[in-house]
C-alpha cells in the first residue's frame, strides 16, 4: 500500500481538505466525507454566542478517521503563530499545525522569515509542522532542516484558482526534498491536482475549488479520484519526453512500399 507519511502518522488519502468558504456546515461535512480526506484543516476564531453553529470541532470529530490540522491564519508574526498553535493544540489534541503567516490581505503571500521562525520553534516543541510557503527551494530546504513534517508551497495565490503557476519551482523542491511536498493553494480543477501528483507531490491541499463548486461533495470526489490517478501515474513512471515524433506503428512494409 502507498501511504503518505507525516511524522509518525500514515494516511492512505493524499487529498487534504480545507473547510473554509462552504455555504454551510452540512455541505462542508458532506464534502469532507465524499473527499475521503483524512487530514482536514480548520481555523481558530472567536466564539460568537449568536452563531454557535459555527463550531466545527463537534461535527468534524464525529467523522471517523479524520485528523485535524488547525492553521495559524490571522497571525502576522512568528510569535502570534506560535501562540495560535498552542491554543489550537489544546482544542484539537492533534500535533499537526499548518503554519500560515500572511501579513498582507491583498495578496495573502506567506512571510518567509516569520514562517521559518515559527516553524523552527514549533518543530522543536514537537508539533508536526506543515508550513505554507512560497515555492522557494531554498526556504523549503531550510524548513526541512529545522524538522518540519512537510513543506506546502503555493501553486498560486490563495483562492485565485490559477492552478500550479509555480510548477518549475515545485519541481525543484520535490527533487531536493526528503519530506513530502504538498501543493497548497491556487488549485481550481482536479486535472491540476492530478498534475501536481504526477510531478511527485506527496499530497495536495484543496479548499476553495471544492467549497465554491456548483456541487461541493461531487467536486470533492472528483478531486479524490484525480489525486489517486495522479499518484498512481507518478508511481507507474511517466514516459520520457521527446523533442520529435517517435512512431507507435510500423512505418515500413505497407502496401508494397519499397524497403
Amino acid at each position: 500500500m502507498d501511504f503518505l507519511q507525516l511524522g509518525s502518522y500514515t494516511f492512505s488519502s493524499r487529498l487534504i481538505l480545507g473547510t473554509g468558504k462552504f455555504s454551510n456546515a452540512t455541505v462542508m461535512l458532506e464534502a469532507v466525507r465524499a473527499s475521503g480526506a483524512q487530514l482536514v484543516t480548520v481555523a481558530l476564531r472567536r466564539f460568537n454566542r449568536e452563531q454557535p453553529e459555527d463550531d466545527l470541532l463537534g461535527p468534524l470529530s464525529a467523522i471517523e478517521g479524520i485528523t485535524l490540522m488547525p492553521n495559524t491564519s490571522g497571525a502576522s508574526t512568528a510569535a502570534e503563530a506560535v501562540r495560535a498553535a498552542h491554543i489550537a493544540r489544546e482544542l484539537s489534541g492533534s500535533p499537526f499545525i499548518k503554519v500560515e503567516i500572511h501579513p498582507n490581505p491583498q495578496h495573502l503571500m506567506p512571510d518567509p522569515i516569520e514562517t521559518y521562525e515559527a516553524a523552527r520553534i514549533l518543530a522543536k516543541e514537537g508539533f508536526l509542522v506543515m508550513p505554507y510557503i512560497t515555492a522557494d527551494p531554498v526556504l523549503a530546504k531550510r524548513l526541512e532542516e529545522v524538522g518540519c513534517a512537510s513543506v506546502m508551497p503555493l501553486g498560486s495565490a490563495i483562492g485565485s484558482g490559477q492552478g500550479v503557476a509555480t510548477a518549475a519551482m515545485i519541481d525543484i523542491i520535490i527533487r531536493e526534498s526528503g519530506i513530502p511536498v504538498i501543493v497548497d493553494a491556487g488549485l481550481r480543477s482536479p486535472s491540476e491536482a492530478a498534475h501536481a501528483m504526477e510531478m511527485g507531490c506527496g499530497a495536495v491541499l484543496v479548499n476553495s475549488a471544492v467549497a465554491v463548486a456548483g456541487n461541493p461533495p461531487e467536486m470533492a470526489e472528483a478531486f479524490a479520484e484525480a489525486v489517486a490517478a495522479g499518484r498512481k501515474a507518478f508511481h507507474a513512471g511517466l514516459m520520457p519526453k521527446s523533442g520529435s515524433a517517435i512512431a507507435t506503428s510500423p512505418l515500413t512494409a505497407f502496401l508494397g512500399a519499397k524497403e
Partner: protein
Amino acid sequence: MSQMITIELNGKQQPLPSGSAVSDLLKIIGADGKNVAIVVNEQIIRPENRPAHFLQEGDRVELLIFAGGG
C-alpha cells in the same frame, strides 16, 4: 445580591458575578466547554483547571472555537 465585576470577553465588556470561575463564565454565556479554548490574560486554561480558575476585575478572556478555514 452578589457583587459584579467586569471582564473583557473577546474584546467586549462582560459583567459577571464576583467570584465566578471560568467554568461559570462558560455556563453563563452558553458555550460548550468541550469545544472552546479559553485564554485568560494570555494563559491557556485547560478544562480540568476551569472550575478553580476564578476571574478578576479587568481580566482579558479570549474564547476560541474551530471554524472553517483552509
